[in-house]
């Protein structure tokens, strides 16, 4: 107890000059340190140190230490181990990483992620951890966006049907929106997207802080994407219905009925939602090209195929595309106009952000684009510009390594 208290006073006395401390404790002492009346002060001491080494500890103690840190600090904990004695610790931590190898497969079987060698941990965290964080946050924001854009047009149309629940689109169009016409691009983004290549993820480890600081999934970002959805729906609905009012829709004097307005709006939504995906990713493989352009093309194919089904099945979508929409120039003009008008604000916003207020991964994209990735001075400058507050261990270690 005295040792812990004196150690703590030492750490707090010298923490102002970022002196790095290490704590070494063995299994026998750990048994006392983990008792209820001592464990909190032990935890405080341990947190103040840059490194803590617990040697000769039993599997139960490993798990208890992990639990202490997890509950005491409230942070996400990661445990890595390769033997059967690490199983308790792996299960206790938020993320357990098992190393498959000499000591058998027990660790692997009870872990969340399995790797083959310890050194792969760096790649796992910095590359895959960063990609995973970015993919999931982008995917969730985009999902809200596309469903809001689609559903809100239906809601706006309801205002014009005296809220009688008459949808603006054909039933099957409604059902298949999330199945065919907007699903594959999101999946492609969630599985394949890379904002920065693996090489750069390793070169700029600070990129990992984007996940720790939760920069890409802040409330501000979520609300902005939702606002984008609302705004897109408003533009699409009002521009389409204002352009397709009572006047003749084509040169034969025919009027735009409900199926024509619905078909035009749906076309606009499919284009907007997919082009928005193309604008928000910065990594285009063959897969992305196929799913984005393919989805848009498939919408036209679907209109043809569904419209060719007998009228008792396709009801008001029967031959709408072939007969009414495609031959009318106003359909194509309206589609082009509404799509560009809807996407221009987002395009402008991302242009301004990229040029004047780039985020850290965007700065790295600039570095790559300008070919300065091998210039050490420049990279150092970029790193310094986005240093975020980190724990004492990091700065202390860097300062120590520089002093050598």
């Amino acid at each position, binding site marked *: 107890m005295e040792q812990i208290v004196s150690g703590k006073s030492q750490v707090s006395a010298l923490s102002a000059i970022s002196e790095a401390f290490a704590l070494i404790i063995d299994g026998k002492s750990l048994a006392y340190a983990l008792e209820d009346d001592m464990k909190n002060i032990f935890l405080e001491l341990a947190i103040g140190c840059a490194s803590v080494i617990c040697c000769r500890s039993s599997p139960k103690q490993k798990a208890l230490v992990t639990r202490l840190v997890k509950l005491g600090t409230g942070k996400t904990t990661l445990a890595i181990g390769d033997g059967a004695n690490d199983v308790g610790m792996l299960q206790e931590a938020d993320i357990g990483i098992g190393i498959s190898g000499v000591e058998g497969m027990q660790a692997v079987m009870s872990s969340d992620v399995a790797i083959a060698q310890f050194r792969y941990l760096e790649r796992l965290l910095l590359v895959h951890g960063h990609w995973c964080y970015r993919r999931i946050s982008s995917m969730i924001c985009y999902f809200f966006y596309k469903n809001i854009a689609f559903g809100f047009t239906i809601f706006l149309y309801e205002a*014009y*049907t*005296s809220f*009688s*629940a*008459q949808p*603006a689109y054909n039933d099957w169009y409604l059902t298949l929106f999330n199945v065919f016409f907007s699903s594959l691009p999101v999946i492609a983004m969630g599985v*394949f997207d*890379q904002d920065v*290549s*693996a090489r750069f993820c390793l070169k700029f480890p600070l990129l990992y802080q984007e996940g720790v600081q939760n920069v890409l999934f802040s409330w501000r970002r979520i609300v902005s994407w939702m606002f984008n959805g609302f705004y897109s729906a408003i533009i699409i609905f009002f*521009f389409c219905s204002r*352009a*397709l*009012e*009572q*006047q*003749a*829709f*084509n*040169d*034969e*004097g*025919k*009027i*735009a*009925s*409900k*199926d*024509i*307005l*619905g078909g035009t709006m749906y076309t606009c939504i499919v284009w907007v939602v997919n082009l928005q995906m193309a604008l928000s990713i*910065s*990594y*285009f*493989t063959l*897969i992305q090209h196929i799913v984005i352009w393919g989805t848009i093309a498939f919408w036209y194919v679907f209109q043809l195929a569904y419209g060719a089904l007998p*009228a*008792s099945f396709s*009801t*008001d979508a*029967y*031959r709408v595309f072939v*007969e*009414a929409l495609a031959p*009318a120039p*106003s359909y194509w*003009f*309206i589609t082009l*106009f509404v799509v*560009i008008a809807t996407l*221009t604000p987002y*395009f402008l916003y991302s*242009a301004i952000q*990229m*040029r*004047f207020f780039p985020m850290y991964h965007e700065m790295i*994209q*600039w570095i*790559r684009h300008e070919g300065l990735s091998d210039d050490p001075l420049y990279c150092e400058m970029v790193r310094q510009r986005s240093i975020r507050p980190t724990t004492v261990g990091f700065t202390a270690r860097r300062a120590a390594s520089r002093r050598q």
Partner: protein
Amino acid sequence: MTDTDRGTQRDRHSAFSLFTQQSLPACKPVLTPEWVIMTFLFIGFIFIPVGLVTLRASHSVVEIVERYDIGCVPEPFRIDKVSYIQDDSIPKNCSLSFKVPKYMKAPIYIYYQLDNYYQNHRRYVKSRSDKQLLHGQNEHGISSCQPVEVNNDRPIIPCGLIAWSLFNDTFTFIRNRAELKVNRKNIAWKSDRGHKFGKNVYPFNFQNGTLIGGGKLNPTIPLSDQEDLIVWMRTSALPSFRKLYGRIEKDLDVDDVVVVHLMNNYNTYSFGGKKKLVLSTTSWLGGKNDFLGLAYVFIGSSSVTIAVVFTLLHLLSPRH
């Protein structure tokens, strides 16, 4: 190098391993200012001419709109228009005349416009039986036509509220004391005439009940030739809509006086609706609507402005 080494080297570049190692060849565009400026200028240079062309098309259309539902009610009945319209003994003919403001080239399309008429209400839209329209009486499934399904235990063809509320005002046009012939054929979409309304289905027991909702149908003409009904049954998108009535195949000169004799049969007075008669030419784009042209020009000029502003900002504030 051993065989296995060469084998792994080959594997490293096979398509499958590129896929699983997430190192597929990729295009990684960066949104540089050059691209942004070029895009906005491109949008501006495409949109402004297109906007001007569409505006010109819209301005070339001549449109005459005449509201007649108030003016056609005789003075003594203006206080209670609903009982006027529902009283069959009062003659409903009415005349109005207007001058043609500009030269109108044939074909001139005649529409009737209804306002505050919710043809897109869900229960109204559902109230039809597509099977019955195509195949006639032998088909089941007319329960969707409730409440206008049977009358005196005999089925109604065509059933449903949409058919029941068929518009039945009629118009004849006179110019210089000679009648202008109105072509009432081919006013419906071809797919409707050919594939949604049967050639062997005849109106039966239609509009025979106590509550008359609209016009009657000639029972000797099959549904596929009843173009008024077909046009009416293609439900409109918004509460204010026009429907095609017919075409005039002659040109109308400027300052021609056209007299319209119309029968004011249809009841829009119970719900505060409006009735208007519209004559309109069309351009290659359609009818008269300046919105598309103006909006194109607006977005185009905004794009050019944004491009200029962005260029200035980019040049004035260096990136480092």
